[in-house]
């Protein structure tokens, strides 16, 4: 029963995440940016723009310029999350890829770093009046959700260990449509439930900042308006009959 529920939950969550995100990306991609609005100084070539986006995605360059505390907590959280996610690949692959095995120890510590970064960000929502002012309940809940995921994960690693072999066969099972029983540990079930919730919320929430950055005209446009005429389709229609 539990196995069926969680299997269906993860099918649903994966469908919402990929479908929803795909739909958003399609929406962003087909919406025109009628004017050249890169925040200057901006790169004058496409490869320059790729490098600018790379710095934003990997280093959080603009955030670094803005505020060192937010940058520190935010960057640590995201970098740690990446390591943690990569580490989790071991539960979805058989045999385990070599590099995934290699990063295991780092991934474990990253779990702590991730929660620490999140706690720092959450503390700012209470302690800095400006940020308290702009925080909606959803902003707090999102952090609570992520901390819940990180916390329950750490709990399983260090306190209430679960039957990880059985869990792995559960996931390999749902990936190959050959269902295997899920271990009925409460902490594990909470952990997985929260992860599924996050996957479902993703396309409907501010988590859209992830694809959004790549579509942000102030960051992804080349600074060459004098050299190349930039014209949206709806603007082209205005030109009919012009001198």
């Amino acid at each position, binding site marked *: 029963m539990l196995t069926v529920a969680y299997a269906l939950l993860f099918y649903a969550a994966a469908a919402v995440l990929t479908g929803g995100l795909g739909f958003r990306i399609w929406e962003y991609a087909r*919406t025109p940016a009628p*004017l050249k609005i890169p925040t200057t*100084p901006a790169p004058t070539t496409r490869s320059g723009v790729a490098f600018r986006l790379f710095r934003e995605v990997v280093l959080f360059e603009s*955030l670094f310029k803005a*505020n060192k505390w937010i940058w520190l907590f935010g960057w640590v959280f995201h970098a740690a999350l990446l390591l943690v996610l990569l580490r989790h690949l071991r539960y979805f692959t058989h045999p385990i890829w070599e590099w995934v095995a290699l990063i295991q120890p780092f991934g474990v510590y990253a779990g702590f770093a991730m929660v620490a970064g999140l706690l720092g960000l959450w503390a700012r929502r209470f302690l800095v009046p400006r940020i308290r*002012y*702009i925080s909606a309940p959803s902003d707090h809940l999102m952090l609570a959700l992520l901390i819940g995921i990180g916390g329950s994960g750490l709990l399983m690693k260090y306190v209430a260990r679960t039957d990880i072999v059985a869990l792995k066969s559960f996931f390999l099972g749902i990936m190959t449509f050959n269902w295997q029983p899920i271990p009925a540990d409460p902490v594990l079930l909470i952990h997985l439930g929260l992860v599924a919730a996050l996957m479902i919320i993703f396309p409907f929430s501010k988590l859209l900042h992830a694809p959004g950055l790549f579509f942000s005209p102030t*960051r992804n446009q080349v600074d060459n308006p004098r050299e190349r005429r930039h014209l949206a389709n709806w603007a082209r229609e205005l030109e009919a009959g*012009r001198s």
Partner: protein
Amino acid sequence: MAQVKEPDRSEGELPDPLEIPDLVPGCMAASKPYVAAPEFQKPLGFPGELVENWQEKAIEKMAELRGKYRSFRVFLDACVKCGACTDKCHYFLGTGDPKNMPVARQDLLRQVYRRHFTLAGKYLPWLVGARDLTEEVLDDWYSYFHQCSQCRRCSVYCPYGIDTAEISMAGREIMDSIGKGQKYSNEIIGKVLSIGNNLGLPKKALKATLEGLEEEVLEETGVPVKFPLDEKGADILLVAPSADYFAEPHVAGLIGYAKVFHQAGVTWTISSYGTEAANFGMFIGSYENMREIALRIRKAALDLGVKRLVFGECGHAWRAAYSFLNTLAGPFDFLDQRYPIPQHICEFTYDLMQAGKLKFDKSKNEHIRLTFHDSCNIARGSRLGNMPGGQFEIPRAILKATCNHFHDMPADTIKEGTLCCGGGGGLLTDELIEIRKKGAQPRMRALQQVAEEHGVTHMAAMCAICKAQFSKVLPMYGFDMEAIVSVHQMVSNAIVLDRVEGASQESEGGEE
């Protein structure tokens, strides 16, 4: 009511220009510009007054903008409320009103967007801070979207590049579409569209002014520097902000352009039809009106048969020209492709300097200890020259060539982090003087620092709005009104003119 402390110039310690104030909720809620009367709304294609079903119409407009502008959609979706922008707006720094924090300003629109266009906002509005578009929300829109000078400083610091200017432009466009426009901007756009310039100067007045300038320069220098109007077949069409024809220190800049053209040995002209460089269509987020204004410049260039297009000193005008003109009114295949289209007067002057064709007598500016105010739309919305950042280096190179004493203001208040003068984005109107004054505070404090440390006496700017705004607010902060100068005023002061017209070729290889 928030009291912004006046900088006491006799005290020892100077306030940090970027000092973060305490929050004073609602302290600027009453600051709003006059609403446009029907006579100013209708020529722009907007309803004369607030339409009956304005809520419905506003939401329809939002849906339209969401389909036409990727920036609108992505910026409203992507914000995570990290707070990076909260201390970046000069209006927030000067007032402490939390709704002047960029993210909070965006949220005024985002809360309604979420209510109508997102799943969570439709069913769980309390969770994500979604709100219906009530009269109270509309009032906030009108107040706070007119406390944004669209300077883009926040967009530099946002990890996703969210630009509040795009949001305030959209907000104004929505309000225009339901009949709640801003008098100042819309009246001015009407004048450009009917007469040809923001000030409504008819050709006769323009001609008289230019003739007066010719006489004045001749008297002062003994050199017949021309100020041609509507001269067909000239090489260059100069498009300057109309303030350059009557306001101080703007006129001094115009004289500078004319002297540079004289030395370059080129023929040039001003057009009485496409006189205006400024494009307030940008401030109200109206592509159509911005396009109409831009097309006047195209027509002027075609009618006069010029080969080149050069723009005068104006911040948002240069953004509209550099970034948008080709889009709105291009392609300019009838102009000489060897030169940038359009070209900025500073690029023109700088190129001549590089070629050794200009000589400056710096001693003429010896009484001036100078700093430079980067105008926001030039700094963050355009470029000068071939290299990114040329918009910072080229004007400084010109100023340093004309003046012995140059000192930059603190590094976090210039270049891409420059602070708005406080009067941009359609706010340069008398009824908004309180927010203009408070918004200028960070810049005034930065100026105060170089005044104390380096004895700076003057600040140069290359924007008509900056110049007008500073002339007004400098005295409020204890500075001389004439401390603000045009970049080409410095050029005008120091340039060495050849007596004979077209003799510039012989001046090559001067000691400069």
